[in-house]
């Protein structure tokens, strides 16, 4: 078992090696070799700094612009959306905005939508691409095998979405990417081919997750890096929902009468004699 041993742990007690950076009081704050105050503050974008921390590489300015657009386009001020509801409930409970933003954002670590879908979607499009190139599988074979794997359901991460068909976010992001002079790379081309097949067969299209994962894969990012870069992607809409409800009287967000929650459990029953334990 090639894990650390007691002597290795002993060497680390009270010591903290760090590859990303840190504060040297009186000297500088370092980040990946940059002096943060002189080299980064006022010089680079927040998202460039975020990607630098995550990957060690300072990305180009147009990628930061694309990241900004992606964060705006996926986080709407609509409290009906699951994660945004947490923001609204936080306001209703008079919790702090930090609780709202943090837990609302956490809600989107989901397999149905939000950040939780991103590592799954990235691994999937990268696997499809590998099958397409290395195993010479056609788009049709890839789609058919995935539908078979899902027991006949057209449930492919990155394609189709709840509530509606079509996806305005993909339209907006493809326009943004084009304006920033990004070309479709091989993962995106494959995703578009899959979309075309799914549209012809089932009238379903690529969703935002599918677009984002293919785009990021073309730039060489891993599933873990994609999850990390977009960790806060829904926070904007959550905070908006919190602010909206915080102005309103307590209990006024979608108020429920007692009988608005349907009881489906056992009928009223008598408690057994609890002075004797059940056997």
């Amino acid at each position: 078992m090639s894990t650390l041993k007691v002597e290795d742990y002993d060497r680390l007690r009270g010591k903290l090696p760090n590859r990303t950076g840190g504060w040297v009081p009186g000297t500088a704050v370092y980040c990946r070799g940059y002096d943060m105050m002189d080299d980064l503050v006022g010089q680079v974008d927040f998202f460039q700094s975020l990607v630098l921390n995550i990957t060690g590489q300072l990305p180009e300015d147009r990628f930061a612009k694309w990241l900004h657009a992606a964060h705006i386009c996926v986080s709407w001020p609509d409290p009906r959306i699951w994660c945004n509801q947490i923001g609204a409930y936080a306001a209703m409970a008079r919790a702090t905005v930090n609780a709202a933003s943090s837990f609302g954002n956490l809600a989107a670590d989901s397999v149905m939508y939000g950040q939780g879908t991103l590592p799954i979607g990235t691994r999937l499009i990268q696997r499809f691409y590998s099958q397409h190139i290395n195993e010479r599988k056609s788009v049709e074979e890839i789609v058919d095998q995935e539908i078979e794997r899902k027991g006949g359901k057209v449930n492919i991460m990155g394609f189709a979405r709840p509530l509606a068909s079509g996806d305005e976010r993909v339209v907006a992001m493809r326009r943004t990417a084009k304006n920033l002079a990004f070309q479709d790379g091989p993962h995106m081309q494959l995703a578009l081919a899959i979309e075309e097949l799914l549209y012809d067969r089932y009238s379903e299209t690529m969703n935002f997750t599918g677009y984002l994962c293919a785009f990021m894969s073309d730039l060489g990012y891993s599933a873990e890096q994609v999850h990390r870069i977009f960790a806060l992607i829904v926070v904007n809409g959550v905070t908006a929902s919190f602010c909206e409800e915080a102005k309103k009287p307590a209990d006024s967000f979608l108020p429920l009468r007692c009988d608005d929650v349907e009881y489906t459990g056992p009928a009223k029953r008598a408690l057994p004699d609890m002075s004797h334990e059940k056997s």
Partner: protein
Amino acid sequence: MVNRSVKSRKEPFSKKASTSIWKEDADESNPYLVSKTHLRGYSFDEITEQCDFIDTFYLLFLGDLPNKNQKQLLQLLLTTFISPSPRHPASRSAMSLGGGKTFPQHILPASLGIAGGEYLGGRQVQLCMHFIQNNYQTLPKKWLEEQQATLALADKLLLAEGRIIYGFGQQYGDVDPYATRLANKFLGKSFSGPHLTWCAELVDGLKLYDIGWLQTGIVAAVLCDLGFPAYAGAGLFQLIQAPGLLAHGLEAYPKSRTEFPFVSDEDYHIVDT
């Protein structure tokens, strides 16, 4: 040509949320206020008067009152794992939150988030329950024979973290003797269940790989014996550990920041920059 324009699916959403747990009878004068409540069909007034915490906990989650063995098993589970070690990342988070004067209402949820992890946390319990429930019909010895080739090729770090055979691994480079000691509290008793016994036999076979119980494996096996589905494992593990986490955070809250270690500049090494 793909048309991405948006069309509502007009899905038939339910008009009401539903629950089989809690029934609230409305007050006659205000339909939003409650006059009387029932938990799983029993008057909650009577429950508060006649049931203890374990009865109520079992009823809440599993829908009925426990028998004697179920009650003893649940009692032992809640007591044994009431607090993670003060060296567990979740406890250290709780202390850091307390010592950092984080608003006290955030100490528990933030530390519980850390207790949800895939190493010694709730996610590991959930995945271990999946593993147990999917394989428990196969004799542990046979299962190990079938997995021999896979285990030989497995990533050793993941194997040690209990992320190959979820819930079974190492801590600090060795089999954890304390986890073994805790497991023994549950074995060979009148209330011991078949999933835990299956896991104990598995652990015997895993000695060959220098792998043993992790605390999450014990919790997972007991939750299976109590009849919980795997997806309940993560949250229940967090719930069981919550008292200890909050206690550590609250203990830290009044302390001054210098009562906690802070890595000195000499011991903080920025490398590879």
